[in-house]
């Protein structure tokens, strides 16, 4: 994943200046928008294996799949976040995370982008009053170098 980490000189300089704690986020696209989750919470990034639909499952659960013997519940992240856009991308990937109760949950995203390192200055946390209506899944927003990333609370997303 090293090639995904952008460490330009200006970034290092910024980091040196702010001295705040740095958090690593994995960013990915859902439709036109950019989202991020804390990198440490993602166990693996998977090319989607065949997924078996589960009849009667909640609408945002696409089904189950097996990752080397581990049974994974596959969640359509766009549906869980109640985004209108539901198109499937050919570059879609599954982010594998383990829920607090031990359930392996795979989140389907349209495209994995990169890992960004955010200092506190780069982030506006929802808890600090982001304004507007904020979903229970949103941790805040990150604004590294003009980008706009919606940071998701992975725990809340997979807990359900």
């Amino acid at each position, binding site marked *: 994943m090293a090639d995904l980490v952008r460490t330009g000189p200006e970034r290092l300089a910024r980091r040196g200046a702010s001295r705040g704690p740095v958090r690593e986020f994995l960013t990915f696209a859902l439709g036109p928008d950019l989202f991020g989750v804390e990198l440490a919470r993602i166990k693996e990034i998977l090319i989607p294996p065949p997924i078996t639909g589960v*009849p*009667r*499952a909640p609408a945002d659960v696409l089904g*189950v799949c097996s990752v*080397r013997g581990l*049974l994974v519940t596959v969640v359509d992240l766009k549906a869980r976040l109640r985004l209108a856009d539901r198109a499937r991308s050919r570059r879609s990937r599954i982010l594998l995370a383990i829920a607090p*109760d031990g359930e392996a949950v795979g989140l389907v995203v349209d495209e994995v982008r990169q890992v960004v390192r955010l200092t506190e200055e780069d982030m506006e946390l929802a808890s600090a009053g982001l304004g507007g209506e904020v979903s229970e899944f949103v941790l805040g927003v990150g604004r590294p170098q003009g980008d706009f990333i919606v940071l998701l609370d992975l725990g809340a997303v997979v807990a359900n």
Partner: protein
Amino acid sequence: MADPIDKARDEFLSEAQEIVETLSRNLLDLDTSVRAGSADPALVNEAFRAVHTLKGLAGLFGAGRLGHLSHRLEDLLDDLRLGRMVLAPEVLDVLFSAVDAYARLLAMARQGSDEAIPAVEDLLARLDSLAQHAPGKSSPNSDYDLDPGLLAVLTEYEEHRLRANLEQKLGLYRLRVEFDLATIDKALEDLKERAKRHGEIITYLPAGEATSPDAIELDLLMASRDDLATLIGSLGADNVVIEELPRRRSVASMTPKGPAGVVAQQQGVESAVPVRAGDAGLDQGPSLRSLTQTVRVDIRKLDNLMNVVGELAIVRGTLARLAERLRAEGERRVAADLLRLHRSFDRRLAEMQAGILEVRMVPLGQVFERLARVVRQIGREMEKDIRLVITGAETEIDKLIVEELSDPLMHMIRNAIDHGIEAAARRLEVGKPIAGTIALNAYQKGNHVMIEVEDDGRGIDGDAVVDKAVRLGKISAEDAKELGREEVLALVFLPGLSTRGTVDDVSGRGVGMDIVKTNIGRLGGIIDVQSESGIGTKMTITLPITLAIVSALMVDVAGHTFAIPLSTVSEALSLDAGGTRLLDGREVITLRGTTLPLCRLERVLKLTRPAGQPAVHRSYVVVVSLGNRRLGLVLDHLVGQQDIVIKPLGRSLASVRGFAGATELGDQRVGLVIDAAAIVDEVLTHTDHREAPPVHG
């Protein structure tokens, strides 16, 4: 990921549980021996040791209440084994309730709670009152806190000698001697002879730490009136290390170690391993070396291993396909090699799978022993003399199943004693022996384990059962008239059908058999009942041997593959379109003269048929049966039979009914496992207010 403290606690709890089970078994034997005329001293000793070990464990883990109870019980058992108290039935009652008290304490400890339990307080009070009847206490053995591991290997005679020596207030010494294997016989005799002047060698055990392959080290336990210095002077040599066994200290002072000068006195309180002066720092404190060769394993670890086996099975399949492809491409020699490899892999894998399954297996005896206690207790409560006959206790079954079995079996036995076995007067009247017999039989039958609970009581009164079922509105009076004996008996599994009018302590709360049946069903098992009026009742439980691997029928419906556990399948047949008729708005077929309700899986699961896959003309019916309820599942194709490993669905799918889990199909795909019980329940209960029978047939 488990917290090491949690892990240690888990291990403590499961070890304590095992010891309590041993104690319980021991008490039952003791009960038998008391009834036969005299309490076997070896059994009393065993019980004592069990409690003693528990006390030690409780001390290590700071389980205060457990330790306190153990301490008091230890005193009682000590009085018993030293003949200061007679083992009367009342005393045994107290001991038996101690087993229950332990169970409660352990359950509380498991929840991390340390509240007072009334039953335990009550027991302590009873122990108090027993103790008042016992004469003064000065146990000749109480000066030494001997390693239970050591006591366990003493022969009866050795133990007797040990006690006799202790009664004379002799000191105990341990001699570690290294013998040359070639001359050990003579050397040992010589040493014994020389030791006679000072006292007596009670026993010797291999210490297993010899310095060369031609030598063996023995630990000799010796009682002597002389002090350590005298003994060293007389018996000491290069190959002999002598150590005085410390007298008992209070439990509280167990942990701290004295300064170097007194180490020799303190070492090996409970250890059979003396320490040479040179390496005193290495081996302090109680020996943790276990005398047994067994390990305790968390069953989840076995599940993980089983998953790995499942994956290897997939590798095996790939290997076979690869070999086929090579053969097709003309690489005959490589293909042949690969096939050989595949066969060998296949065999090893099968061995490994069997091996893991074997580890999961435990004898049913574990649960039977607990039941034996229940029988004794209920028998005494109800003043019925009950003879319990157990056969097949060695029959093995999956550990997880055993855990779930004790409650249902307990219900069945309570029922048998309460409703089945007649009062003594009545039994005399009809010419039966006064003691009622309850037989608990287990045996293996193919891939299933059968467990029978049989009593020689009055049998089930069919008329009374039918009356009650009609009164409760479970069946109509007209239907009732047409029931055969088997169907009548099946009524006892309906909710609320307890044949007793009054609610009492033992059974008759009306929560009996339907719960039993549900619990057995959850394990993939079924229960049948046979009963003859005046002669007795026999309940038979059929269970799969393991939950880890299940034989399943693989089926296709609307392009989806499902697995149906074979334990629930009674038969499969083909169905021509239009071969069904409607009855009360439900599709049914007539199968060998009886009516079988159908359920189209495609419809009930709301499956979407992939585009371009038309509905089949000829479909199949898989008949699933749960006890007396039968349902035909209509589907497209039967794919075949396969052994599968069921994995539970995650929490996000907990609300989804109808599936018992998922399984890997190979080629990376996953199939869902049909929970036949849930589907039958859903389909038959929601639209059928009769709830259960009579579904004729």
